[in-house]
């Protein structure tokens, strides 16, 4: 997933960024409302984690503005305000989910994944692509009943392609979804990741699952 995290508490922001990156997600960070607004409009994110009380522009005002402008990116409000009225206000403003601090990291990620599944009309966390069965919740991949061990980055790459079967994704698109702005990947990072993933999901003697469309990018067959 490519995520935007808008949070003004530095320690929480950095910690979440590290944790999400460790789980294989690309995370961009903003520490105030105006910066977050610019970033949310400039890039396409799978989901946005938004704090309610932000310097510059209040989180709810930002959300109102996005929804009014037709920006439909799923938004998870992450806030210390735990009253029912506050939750109602948040969800009423256009938030897709609401999580109060303190929270469990695993719950945050699970909620974000659920938001992204809904966004791509895939309510089932289990994706079946060719011979592969990908459980996006349990983070497991099986081929013909056998588990395949993947790194977080490889899993994210496979999930990124599997969510768009038959659709060619360019290197830039994949890079944008796998790496945050601060990651600074090498120029061949995507090719290397694809190569590594291919080796693991398509052992010798089996049909390749990921195909290269020369000059265009990579595609996974349905």
């Amino acid at each position, binding site marked *: 997933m490519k995520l935007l995290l808008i949070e003004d*508490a530095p*320690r929480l922001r950095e*910690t979440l960024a*590290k944790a999400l990156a460790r789980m294989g997600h690309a995370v961009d960070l903003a520490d105030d409302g105006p910066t977050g607004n610019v970033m949310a409009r400039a890039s396409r994110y799978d989901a946005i984690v938004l704090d309610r009380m932000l310097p510059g522009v209040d989180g709810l005002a930002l959300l109102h503005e996005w929804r009014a402008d037709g920006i439909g990116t799923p938004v998870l409000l992450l806030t210390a305000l735990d009253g029912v009225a506050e939750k109602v206000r948040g969800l009423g403003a256009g938030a897709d989910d609401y999580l109060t601090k303190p929270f469990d990291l695993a719950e945050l990620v699970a909620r974000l994944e659920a938001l992204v599944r809904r966004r791509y009309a895939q309510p089932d966390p289990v994706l079946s692509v060719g011979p592969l069965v990908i459980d996006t919740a349990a983070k497991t991949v099986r081929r013909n009943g056998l588990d395949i061990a993947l790194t977080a980055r490889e899993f994210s790459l496979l999930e990124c392609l599997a969510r768009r079967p038959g659709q060619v994704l360019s290197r830039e698109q994949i890079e944008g979804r796998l790496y945050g702005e601060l990651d600074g990947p090498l120029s061949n990072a995507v090719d290397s990741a694809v190569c590594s993933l291919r080796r693991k999901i398509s052992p010798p003697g089996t049909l390749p699952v990921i195909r290269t469309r020369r000059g265009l990018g990579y595609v996974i067959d349905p």
Partner: protein
Amino acid sequence: MSSIRHRLTWSMCVAMAALLIATGAGVFLTMRHLLHARFDETLIAKARALITASEIDGKQFEIDLIVHEFAGFGEGGDDYFEIRRLAGGVFQSSPSLAADRADSPGIGHVPVPADDVPRLFNGKLGDGRLARFYVSRFYPKGDKKGRHQDLYLIVASPTGALLRDLTMLGTVLCAAAVAALLLMVPVIRRNLNLGLRAVDGLSSDVSRLKPERLHERLDPAKLPVELKPVAFRINEWLARLEASFERERRFSSHAAHELRTPLAELRSMAELAARWPEEATREHFEAMVAATGELGALLEKLSMLGRADAGGITVVSESMDLAESLAQPLARAGDKAAGREIRIERRVGDERIETDPVLWMAIVQNLLDNAVSHSPPGSMVQVEAGAGLFAVTNPAPGLETADLDHLFEQFWRKDPARAGYGHAGLGLSIVRACAGLLGWKCAASLSGDHLLRIEIRWPCDGGFPTDRNLPGMPASAGIRHSLPNNETVGRDSHGFDSTSDGR
């Protein structure tokens, strides 16, 4: 159940009934008195007519027969007289008492008059009928020889007709009273319903008020003048309740933010280190310790504030040297101020102060910390301390006059995002609470050039010092928000003399 309508109905019915009975009784008694008086007048007139019409003509006693008939003393008449001798025996009697008549009632026994004063009294005729009697000594005209000087006259008139008239009058009055009472109940209820319609409306409006709809207000315009003050007062209380609830909501929301954010940080950092041990670096743990320290400091402040507000702190006063007591906090504040290139200008007198050292330090440290933390880098903080006053002045460019109303609120911060660490917005609340415990007054004022001045004053020489009796102390300027023991909000409110800098 007590009901105004029920009670008013009953009380008005009882009052009206009493009024009717009293009026009826008054009418009846007056009429009875008048009728009795007229009856007596008639009786006396008849007696006088008899006396006037009697004379001794030759040797014969005569009474004009016309008078007999006219006065009803004739045969078949209903008035009676007898002229008796003092020694006993009837001398003359009216034809209506003719002895040969079978229905003659007879006068019966009448006491012999002892003097010449005429007397009226009630009695009974010989046949038992009630009658009014007139008795008087009687000296007939023409009695030159004095043979008839031992006579007395008895005139009697039955009162049966009079009593019947009075009974009829009483009956009519009673019937009229009962009819009026019966008609009065529905009339009173109808009028009460009309009169109480406004009360019913107000009651209905008030019952519709709910804690979750405190923004709603009653409409005094539709109420009668008697109920307008009620509506105004309820609206006033609603506004205060709404403000109080809003303050409570702000407190909860700010407290949640101040407590939950560091907790979330701690939990996330702990989870990160536990799941990916390579993240458990020295810096990571230092950040966790910093978060824990901030949380601890916040809880410490909250605890102090809670105890102060609940009166759970015992004030133990002792005499201290003012300058000496300020030396250490000023040194600490100076270190912090130096880091932000802020200069602290101090003017401390050599007085002694009688106070609780713990509360005094809480006031001083929080005021200094507040000033140093919120002043722009490179600016100057002024500290003044003298007899009965401790004041800290610092530039507050972002502060507005309206903010003074919230300055002492718990968790209030100018920045709605509540960004940054180490300032929860409790410092000035603690100052206010501690000053309140000591019986001191605290106030904040903002000058036109955005200089925030917070003053603490305590009794000195028998009273709170004012600007006038603080020689050399500059008058605090601008809008003032003062908080004596009982919180007051407003400009130049009680607690201090009004000051002006000619703005």
